[in-house]
Every structure is written in structure tokens, then in C-alpha cells.
């Protein structure tokens, strides 16, 4: 149960990092281009630490379990050859359905308002989640969370400022920000629905209680949206889910095609 949980944390980080990285060279002004790519780097750095840990846990599994753990033939060939896996194997050679990130992080950038909305919901979640996770009974996970908390605090300030600036800005910026909030909202519910492996980790005090995180998160979201003169869709709205269990939107396929292209096409190539 610990391995899927570590992968879940790592995959969120890698996929949002990849999405933010798509803004490189395309930001509206240089400072904001730099802001997003700096944030992307924080996320990818966190993904690396977590994939290293996941690889360590995986390499200790019995070989017969390793052989069938991931569907990727490239990984299965490695195991058959008696090799161990590493952080790169997990990022570059796994198939989409073995990814456990939430659907929210695979949402496309679309425009500035959508990028800000996705970031705002996710950064606020990370802020409260990592605050709690830094007290995890798993020392490695706690260390990564403690490190990341400082970074996601910056991310949250950045995205909150933009939500307010656009929401409480011109008529056009208000309308665009409201639309992005409305359309991103249905991807937030999944953050707080525990999968079986998350429930098991919460029982061992490895991972936080998601209901407590949701209460804190909702209060913060409302506080910022109020100041931004924006509103949330009506309570009880339909929520998408599936990412944490490996059922993704088609977006993930496109992301992985680009992210994994080099290693899939030229196996073991070095930069």
C-alpha cells in the first residue's frame, strides 16, 4: 500500500511540473514566465525525491511481484534482465494507467485564467496537505513534505494574488477568471476522496486525514474568492474522479507522449 501512495504523491508533482513547464518561453511577460518555470522546477524536484524513494521500495519487492507490478513492457524487460529500477524508470517508462495523479493536474493550460485557477486549487491543497504530511510517521515522506511546504507557500501566494487581481480587475478579466473557476471546479473533488491505499496510509498515520484537509482548504478558497469578488459553483456539483486509481482523461496520454518520447524512442539515451 505504501508504493502506490508514494507514486500518487510523485505523479501529482511530475505532471503539474510538466504542465507548468509548457509555459516556458510562452509567458505573457518575462517575470511571470520565470515564476511558472520556477514553480515547475520545485514540483519536478519533489517528484525526483519521491520517485527515488518509490524505486527503493519497489526494488525490495519479491521478483515475481515486480514482474507484474507495471504493465510497461520496457519495465518488465528490465526486471527479467535482473536490473533494478530508478527514478527515471518510473517517470519515463510507466504507462498512463499506472500513473496515480489527480485529474486536476493534467488539465491543459488553456489560457492564463485556467492556469491560475488550476494552480490556485492545487497550491491551496498542497499547502494544507504538506503541513500535515510533514508530521508523517514515514520519515522520508515527512522530510520531502517539510522541504516542499516552504515552496508551495510561495506558489499559493502567487496563485492567490492572480485570482484576486483578475477577479477584482476589469469586466473581461473577471469574466474569464470566473469561467476558469467554474470549469476547473469539478476536478477538485477527487483531492478529498480517499482511495483504498490512501485510507490504509491514513490508518498508519503516514498520510493526513483528507476530511480535515478539505475543511481548511474550503475556508481558504472561500476567503480568497471573496476578496476576488468571485463565486464557487453551487454546492453538491458533480465531481470528476478516477486519476488516483489510474483512470485518466485523454490529456495524460498527450502529456506522457511528450514527456516520455526520448526514452521510449531511444532507450537508455543519455543527455
Amino acid at each position, binding site marked *: 500500500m505504501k508504493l502506490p501512495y508514494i507514486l500518487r504523491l510523485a505523479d501529482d508533482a511530475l505532471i503539474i511540473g510538466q504542465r507548468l513547464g509548457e509555459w516556458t518561453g510562452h509567458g505573457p511577460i518575462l*517575470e*511571470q514566465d*520565470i*515564476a511558472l518555470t*520556477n*514553480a515547475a*522546477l*520545485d*514540483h*519536478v*524536484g*519533489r517528484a*525526483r*525525491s519521491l520517485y527515488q524513494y518509490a524505486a527503493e521500495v519497489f526494488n525490495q519487492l519479491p521478483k515475481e511481484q515486480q514482474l507484474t507490478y507495471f504493465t510497461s513492457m520496457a519495465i518488465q524487460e528490465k526486471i527479467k534482465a535482473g536490473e533494478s529500477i530508478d527514478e527515471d524508470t518510473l517517470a519515463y517508462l510507466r504507462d498512463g494507467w499506472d500513473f496515480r495523479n489527480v485529474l486536476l493536474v493534467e488539465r491543459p493550460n488553456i489560457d492564463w485564467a485556467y492556469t491560475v485557477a488550476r494552480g490556485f486549487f492545487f497550491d491551496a491543497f498542497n499547502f494544507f496537505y504538506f503541513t500535515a504530511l510533514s508530521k508523517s510517521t514515514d*520519515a522520508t515522506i*515527512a*522530510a*520531502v513534505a*517539510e*522541504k*516542499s*511546504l*516552504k*515552496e508551495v507557500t*510561495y506558489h*499559493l*501566494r*502567487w496563485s*492567490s*494574488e492572480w485570482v484576486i487581481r483578475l477577479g477584482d480587475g476589469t469586466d473581461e478579466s473577471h469574466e474569464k477568471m470566473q469561467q476558469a473557476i467554474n470549469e476547473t471546479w469539478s476536478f477538485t473533488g477527487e483531492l478529498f476522496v480517499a482511495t483504498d491505499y490512501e485510507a490504509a496510509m491514513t490508518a498508519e498515520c503516514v498520510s493526513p486525514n483528507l476530511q480535515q484537509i478539505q475543511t481548511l482548504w474550503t475556508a481558504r478558497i472561500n476567503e480568497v474568492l471573496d476578496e476576488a469578488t468571485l463565486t464557487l459553483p453551487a454546492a453538491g456539483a458533480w465531481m470528476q474522479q478516477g486519476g488516483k486509481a489510474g483512470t485518466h482523461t485523454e490529456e495524460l496520454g498527450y502529456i506522457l507522449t511528450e514527456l516520455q518520447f526520448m526514452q521510449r524512442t531511444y532507450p537508455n539515451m543519455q543527455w
Partner: protein
Amino acid sequence: MNDVNEEQVYEWLADVKDPEVPALSILDLGIVRNVAVTDNSVNVTITPTYSGCPAMDVISIGIRMALAGHGIKQITIDQQLSPAWTTDWMTEDGKRKLKEYGIAPPNRKAFSSLGLFEEEEIQCPRCDSTHTEMVSRYGPTSCKALYKCLDCKEPFEHFKCH
């Protein structure tokens, strides 16, 4: 290796610079966590400033080159995340060097209670005025933000409290 001790290794490490802020050594920056000398090897434990800091690989190479230059053959470098690095570990000497280099040093206790939208007062490294304005929360590297001085008009970088 009989004549090598930890103190000696620390002296050598003072020559290893932060590639992103070459005014600072890795000791000034406070990222060297531990040095251990055993019979025939030296182990250095460092801590990253930011999770994805690309300077860490360059710093590891710098450490290897510096120690190899002093005849050390077996060198291992470990990275340790916890407790997380904070700008409080930057030495006073390091902060002085930063200011001379033109970068406003971190001047507050990291994570002292600063509200979500509260901004701290940053001093211009050129004229010491606190009449300054943030231009961007993010700068050329993760650890720096961009400011400008409203008195002497100097644009400058601020090493963020972290």
C-alpha cells in the same frame, strides 16, 4: 589519510562556490551538513536549498574536484532533506558578502509570522534605503526575488527568506 581531519576538509570546502551566487561559498550558504573522515574516505553531507535546485549537481562536482585536488581519492556525497534548509543557516559573513555583491540578504527569521499577503521591508543593497518595491516574487533562480529601489533607482535581487 592520517594527516587529514574534518577541520582540514572544512577549510577546503570554503573554496567551493555556489555556482548561482559565486560570492558565497557552500559554507557561507549553510548547506554543508556534515563531514566525516574515515581511514581512506571522506563523506560530505549536503542539503538542497530548493527541491529542484539545479545547482546541487554542480556543487557536488565542485566538492569532488576540490577534495580530489587535495589528494582525496574516495569521496562520497550524500543529500539530506530534513531538517529543511533555511536562510537562517546562512552565516553573517555570507550575508555581508551577498550585500557587497549587490544582492539584498535575507533579513528576517525564516517563517516568522508573516501573513499570506504581508510583505516584508527590504533594504536596497546600494544605498540602504528601505523605500523599495517588489517587481517580481520570482527571479532568475528560485532563491531570489526582483526588487527596485525607489530612492537610488537601482534594480536589485533579494535572496528570499526561506
